[in-house]
């Protein structure tokens, strides 16, 4: 921890900036709600009671979220096994492709699956089977699973990479490969797999857009309906407190596991998959991993193929993109600055966590903004930041940057934390002693050592901001529409070719930026190992 004592603590000056950006919406909503409750200005509280209907709705929403979460853990582990085994050769690039699809927004998956089923139905009816009715619980579950699967796969893979190959090899002397897999491999990877499942649970529970598209009612839709009809956020905010509390508890449980992730590829500490396992993989495990990879490929290619078909022609694509250049510029600039701002403030937050004392409490503070659904974050930000003294900020695209930072800086912080922890303290000590100045020490040692984390943070925040909708549409300034807002506007008009073209553009943009980041990560990893 010498690193923090001598270097990072200086940057802790930015910790209040991190807290101001990420916590102000939640803080403001809490204060306003408490004031309304005390003054009695909320009025009729009967609408906020957790009635039998709401309890059932909450129960059903939890069942949906649990089923998405469980399936995500199962298929994520299955796919993760494949990626774990094939970490060399051409197949190693598959892991990047899978990881990049973390960034494709759920609405693109939903649009693609609806188109795919529409396209399949004539074939189904031609062979005498009834057309598929793509509505209800199963399609909702499927599309949410497809949208979130790369997250659980990535975490399962990270967990599998923590398995000690020597222990596995030793155990094989006494038992079969299959039993070794169940008794040694899975338990060692379990905490990461569970973290992935928990994240999927939270994402599914807070999402009403996909379930309502497939005619499934969920608790978050009811909260939104309450808010829409009243125009008042305090009541719906209070109604969502139990949900926020559950989410918060889950997050605080999984965040330490997320912090163990390594963003710099192979750290050299692990030997990878057990050699015995690699050469003589049990048949059942092989079947499972190929099945998992098959699901991942479906998850990747259904959106790509359908969007290409629906776009129609290159001319349509180019025309639509040309007509959307303002939105593209706005999306790119907002995403760029959000990613940039998140880096210094997240280093501050991460170094704050890494310093001694109150470890768990600090994790809670850092992860707290993640419990806020996007629309609540937007409303909280509008109410908190819209002050005459801050007119220049609120009236400009900077507010979209601030809100994106508020939503995604916790992700960035966990990445930075992992980066800081992976740095050998002796290296920074040497540069501190022999470096000309603190700046010299930063430029020559700390930043290069943290480069993988910086790049990962930049790329992830950039991509998440590019796809952000819920909070952006509440704070976006007039005349500064983003690409995602435009896609949602055109969804309403039934302009499938325009929507598909723009979705395809977003996909290409995210894949390109992800590929660049992956290449940079790989390059920096090689440099570190020299």
């Amino acid at each position, binding site marked *: 921890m010498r690193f923090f004592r001598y270097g990072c603590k*200086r*940057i802790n*000056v*930015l910790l209040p900036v991190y807290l101001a950006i990420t916590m102000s919406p939640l803080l403001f909503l809490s204060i306003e709600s408490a004031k309304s409750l005390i003054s009695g200005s909320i009025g009729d509280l009967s609408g906020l009671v957790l009635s039998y*209907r709401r309890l*059932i*709705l909450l129960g059903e929403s939890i069942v949906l979220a649990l089923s998405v979460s469980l399936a995500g853990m199962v298929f994520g582990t299955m796919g993760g096994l494949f990626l774990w085994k094939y970490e060399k050769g051409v197949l190693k690039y598959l892991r990047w492709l899978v990881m990049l699809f973390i960034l494709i927004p759920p609405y693109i998956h939903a649009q693609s699956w609806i188109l795919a089923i*529409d396209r399949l139905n004539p074939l189904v009816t031609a062979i005498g089977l009834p057309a598929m009715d793509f509505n209800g619980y199963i399609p909702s579950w499927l599309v949410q699973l497809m949208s979130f699967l790369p997250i659980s796969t990535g975490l399962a893979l990270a967990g599998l990479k923590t398995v000690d190959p020597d222990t596995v090899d030793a155990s094989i002397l006494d038992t079969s490969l299959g039993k070794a897999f169940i008794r040694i491999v899975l338990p060692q990877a379990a905490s990461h797999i569970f973290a992935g499942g928990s994240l999927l649970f939270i994402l599914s529970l807070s999402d009403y857009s996909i379930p*309502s*598209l497939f*005619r499934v*009612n969920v608790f978050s*839709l*009811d909260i*939104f*309906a*309450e808010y*829409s*009809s009243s*125009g008042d*956020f305090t009541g719906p905010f209070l109604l969502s407190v139990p949900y926020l509390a559950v989410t918060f508890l889950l997050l605080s449980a999984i965040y330490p596991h997320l912090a163990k992730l390594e963003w710099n590829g192979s750290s050299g500490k692990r030997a990878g998959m057990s050699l015995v396992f690699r050469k003589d993989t049990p048949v059942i495990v092989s079947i499972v991993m190929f099945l998992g990879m098959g699901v991942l490929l479906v998850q990747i290619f259904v959106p790509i193929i359908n969007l290409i078909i629906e776009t129609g022609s290159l001319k349509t694509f180019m025309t639509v993109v040309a007509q959307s250049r303002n939105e593209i510029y706005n999306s790119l600039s907002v995403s760029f*600055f959000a990613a*940039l*701002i998140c880096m*210094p403030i997240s280093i501050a937050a991460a170094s704050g966590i890494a310093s001694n004392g109150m470890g768990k409490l600090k994790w809670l503070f850092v992860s707290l903004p993640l419990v806020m659904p996007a*629309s609540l974050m937007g*409303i909280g930000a*509008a*109410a908190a930041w*819209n*002050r*005459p003294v801050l*007119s*220049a*900020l*609120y*009236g*400009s*695209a*900077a507010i979209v*940057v601030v809100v994106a930072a508020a939503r995604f800086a916790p992700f960035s912080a966990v990445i930075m934390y992992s980066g800081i922890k992976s740095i050998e303290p002796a290296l920074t000590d040497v540069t501190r002693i022999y470096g000309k100045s603190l*700046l010299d020490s*930063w430029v020559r040692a700390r930043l290069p050592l943290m480069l993988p984390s910086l790049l990962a943070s930049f790329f992830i925040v950039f991509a998440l901001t590019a796809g952000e*909708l*819920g909070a952006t*549409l*509440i704070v*976006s*300034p*007039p*005349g*500064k*529409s983003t690409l995602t*807002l435009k896609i*949602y*506007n055109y*969804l*309403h*008009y*039934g302009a499938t070719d325009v929507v598909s073209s723009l979705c395809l553009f977003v996909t290409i943009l995210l894949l390109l930026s992800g590929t660049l980041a992956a290449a940079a990560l790989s390059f920096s990893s090689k440099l570190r190992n020299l």
Partner: protein
Amino acid sequence: MKRVVSILALIFVIFTFFSLTACSPAKNRQVVVYTSVDQVFSEPLLKQFEKDTGIKVLPLYDTEATKTTGLANRIVAEKSNPRADVFWNGEFTQTIMLKEKGLLKAYNSPRAKELPPNFVDSEGYWTAFGGRARVFIINTDMLSKEEYPQSLFDMVDDRYQGSDIGLSYPVFGTSATHSAALYSFLGNEKALDFFNKIKKKGIQIVDGNSVVRDLVADGKLKFGITDTDDALSAVKKGKPVEVVIPDQGENGQGTLIIPNTVAVISGCPNPDEAKVFIDYILSAETEQYLVDAGWIDIPSRQSVKGGFYSEFKKIKGMEIDFNKVYLEMKASTKDMQEIFVR
């Protein structure tokens, strides 16, 4: 410490860049318009307004993702420091909600005299114009003319299967306004009974009026109830659909006509430009433009020619009081949540 200052300076430069970018138009005359009217219809008109008046428009459009209530709720969230000058709404209940919350400023536009008396708020806080209607969109491949529904209550008639009929969530948008209007017109008991029957019949509750349109146009539903602009967009695309206006007989109750509303925001930054904009938007020329564009289907002036279906000018509307419909909104939405969001 110098390094920290450098980092803070960098952040300051970034924010300054954004602020300058956004603030530069303030040197000219401008008006900030929040509109829930679909962007394809409102955007060309706003550009024309800029050309005609030299006042720059900074528009903010609503999206289907917020069930077209996002802007009204945003105005509420921004009440301590209003950013919008004008709220141009595609319906009326959200506008009245803003009035009730004290967020509108009275303005009696000279153009308001050309409009029906019930289209102008008695205290001058909002003015209505033009309108869309709630209509049936019918798949002509799946229903013959004799089978077309003629009344809203045909939705619960035994002639039709519930799974063949579509209705968007009656807790959002114009579908919610329609349920509140039925509460106002029929009385709470009758209206509640009607919606309970809809639930019992298993009518498809879908995610928006445009989804009703698409499902009928694609042959997945035989018919559904939606807004005229949605229905007509499918007709214009040559889909196998037809539009039927419900309850038009001599004893029919008429269908719900939903006018646009426009209002000045209290404490807005550009009140003079807001008034110019409202006068412009309430003109007969603008109404004719919006009719021709396909947003307004039922003009509020005799002098404005009808649009795609000229007979729409003669539509029989439900006799409702907009304020009373608003007052029913809370009760009806609560009931609709109880019935349909479960």
